[in-house]
């Protein structure tokens, strides 16, 4: 214990750090799927490119070509490690783009694939990734129809980077957009959240914590078809990848101008994910998924859609987690198990482990 009493604090003089305004360089958060990513697109890309589709910030664009409605999407994959429990960069690259198309209601038809390979990577590694892509494409019933390969010098890449793009037909009568969400819509998630992100973290260098958990990477086209067979009148779908469920719900709340009210206890979080997140100081709502979707369904169809989802292997754990509401437009509010509420905000950038 100190033996001298401290002086009285002059709290009127309490001071503060200078704020950080604009980032002059790209930081990791610009790729995190949160507020920084959205600003990058809105402030740099969309104005530079022009055109109407990009500004809608969807997972995929719905375009009309020769009278036919197509979903069109692209995504790049830089995951490390290349192989992880339950999957690899190869099946992520196929499933991710298939899922982006599925969120428009489209069944993926054709994919392109770009390989950016680092000089010196072992050929069997490339072969394993290619085989994983082929297997995933067969499962999703999509053809990889065109591709490209580039090699960068040692040290300029991380082994393998992949890009895939895809197109698929949007069935007649299907119009899935966040703007269609209205108060009263029921929010359904297709199963346990946070699984992919925890699987990746569990194998990354320095973040091993003894949790046996496999990525949920899967193609969701079949599940979406099952849901659309109940009614083509679903309002919106999202696959909550980067930024997790929180980012997906915030995007929809913002785009639709409705509030979203969640019952926190209804959100399916498996114990392994809950425990890993408790240890790491993360919130499962912000952890990435690769084989899950969240659906906004008109109330009169909710029970039937939920029942149909549960008949599909990828929707067996489907659950109603909340509803779209008129209150707090543009915001996601969770009702906690104790009976309090909290705002589930859009993550700024990367989610960071807390010190305490």
């Amino acid at each position: 214990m100190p033996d001298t009493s401290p002086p009285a604090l002059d709290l009127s003089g309490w001071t503060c750090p200078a704020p950080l305004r604009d980032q002059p360089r790209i930081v990791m958060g610009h790729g995190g799927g949160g507020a920084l990513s959205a600003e990058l697109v809105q402030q740099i890309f969309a104005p530079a490119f022009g055109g109407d589709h990009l500004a809608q910030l969807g997972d995929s664009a719905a375009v009309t070509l020769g009278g036919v409605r197509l979903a069109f999407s692209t995504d790049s994959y830089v995951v490390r490690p290349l192989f992880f429990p339950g999957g690899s960069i190869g099946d992520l690259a196929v499933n991710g783009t298939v899922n982006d198309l599925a969120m428009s209601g489209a069944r993926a038809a054709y994919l392109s694939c770009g390989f950016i390979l680092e000089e010196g990577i072992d050929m069997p590694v490339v072969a394993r990734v290619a085989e994983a892509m082929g297997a995933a494409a067969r499962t999703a019933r999509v053809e990889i129809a065109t591709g490209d390969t580039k090699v960068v010098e040692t040290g300029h890449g991380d082994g393998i980077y992949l890009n895939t793009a895809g197109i698929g037909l949007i069935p007649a009568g299907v119009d899935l957009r966040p703007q269609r969400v209205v108060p009263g819509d029921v929010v359904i998630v297709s199963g346990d959240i946070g699984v992919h992100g925890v699987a990746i973290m569990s194998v990354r260098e320095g973040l091993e914590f003894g949790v046996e958990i496999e990525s949920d990477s899967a193609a969701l086209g079949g599940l979406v078809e099952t849901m659309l067979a109940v009614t083509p009148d679903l309002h919106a779908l999202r696959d909550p990848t980067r930024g997790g469920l929180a980012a997906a719900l915030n995007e929809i709340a913002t785009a639709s101008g409705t509030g979203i009210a969640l019952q926190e206890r209804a959100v399916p979080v498996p114990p392994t994910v809950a425990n890993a997140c408790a240890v790491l100081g993360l919130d499962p709502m912000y952890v990435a998924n690769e084989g899950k979707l969240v659906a906004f369904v008109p109330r009169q169809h909710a029970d039937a859609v939920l029942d149909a989802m549960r008949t599909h292997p990828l929707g067996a754990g489907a659950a109603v987690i909340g509803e779209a509401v008129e209150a707090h437009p543009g915001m996601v509010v969770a009702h906690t198990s104790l009976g309090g509420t909290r705002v589930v905000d859009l993550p700024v950038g990367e989610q960071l482990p807390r010190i305490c």
Partner: protein
Amino acid sequence: MKYLDEFQDPALARRLLDDIRATVTRPWALMEVCGGQTHTIIRHGIDQLLPDDVELIHGPGCPVCVTPLEVIDKALDIAARPEVIFCSFGDMLRVPGTDRDLFRVRSEGGDVRVVYSPLDALKLARQNPDREVVFFGIGFETTAPPNAMTVYQARKHRIPNFSLLVSHVRVPPAIEAIMTSPSCRVQAFLAAGHVCSVMGMGEYPDLAERFRVPIVVTGFEPLDILEGIRRTVRQLERGEHTVENAYPRAVRTEGNPAAQAMLDDVFEVTDRAWRGIGTIPASGWRLSPRYRDYDAEHRFAVGDIATREPAACRSGEVLQGLIKPHECEAFGTTCTPRTPLGATMVSSEGACAAYYLYRRLGATPTKLETSPVA
């Protein structure tokens, strides 16, 4: 892992809340010291469930928030050097220094890595003998022992390329400083359970007696927090001011003697600046002379970096409960979680950051309509 759900049980929480409601007869202002407790309170909406007469003032116990600007600037200077691998707990990366943060240093080519334990940084030092590996050792009595252990190991195993940038702080001098402030409204403390699991409870009876405040050692799960509040309110209503242990599953009266011995060996008590607050005597630790060679501040000669914190925000008044965050002119305009002006907006568990979210709901947290889940 078990015993997570058990300490979040809604039925038990309601019983504790009923007990608190039945006990309280007039307004009381309690301060929860630790940022981890604030996080639980906000995360579960506990502050909205308490009777209006029980006010929680969020204390300065978030290590991310109180690490002084000057130390952040030193960290940024060291992290930007080409020979350095700079290791830190994750949530320090976004904390702004004078003109940038560790994320930006990384985008400019600095080798900044997130680790979960200082021992991981020591492992990196072994694996990279041609690089200087620096660990950012911040935090309260809770994080100090593993950092002390790491420096001890580095010296014992002669790992010359490891060093520690130290900005450790201690809770009891901060409580003393808060209680001697003329504008202080705090009437009782929920002491930080993890701090006491290391240091024991011996430092608190003197504070409770001198300032006539109840101090209840409190854990971090929702039921722990509610039990701490229940006991604190009970003491206040009875006019008592003793030290109680409401977290006996983790805290023994004597604390952890092995950890204390390690702290005594590696660190010595020093005056320490707290971000925004200023210097509090004897409120921190620095490496003791025999470990001076492992002091990053010494090794990289950044002792000359002296940053004056520009006056602009009123987080001091917020932390004292004198104003609510939204009563500050900068709140929600020039000061947001994206562009924090002060400590309380820096961390997601800071009072201003929490209010920022609820303010956009058009209500303060205590007035939010809640709909309990059956």
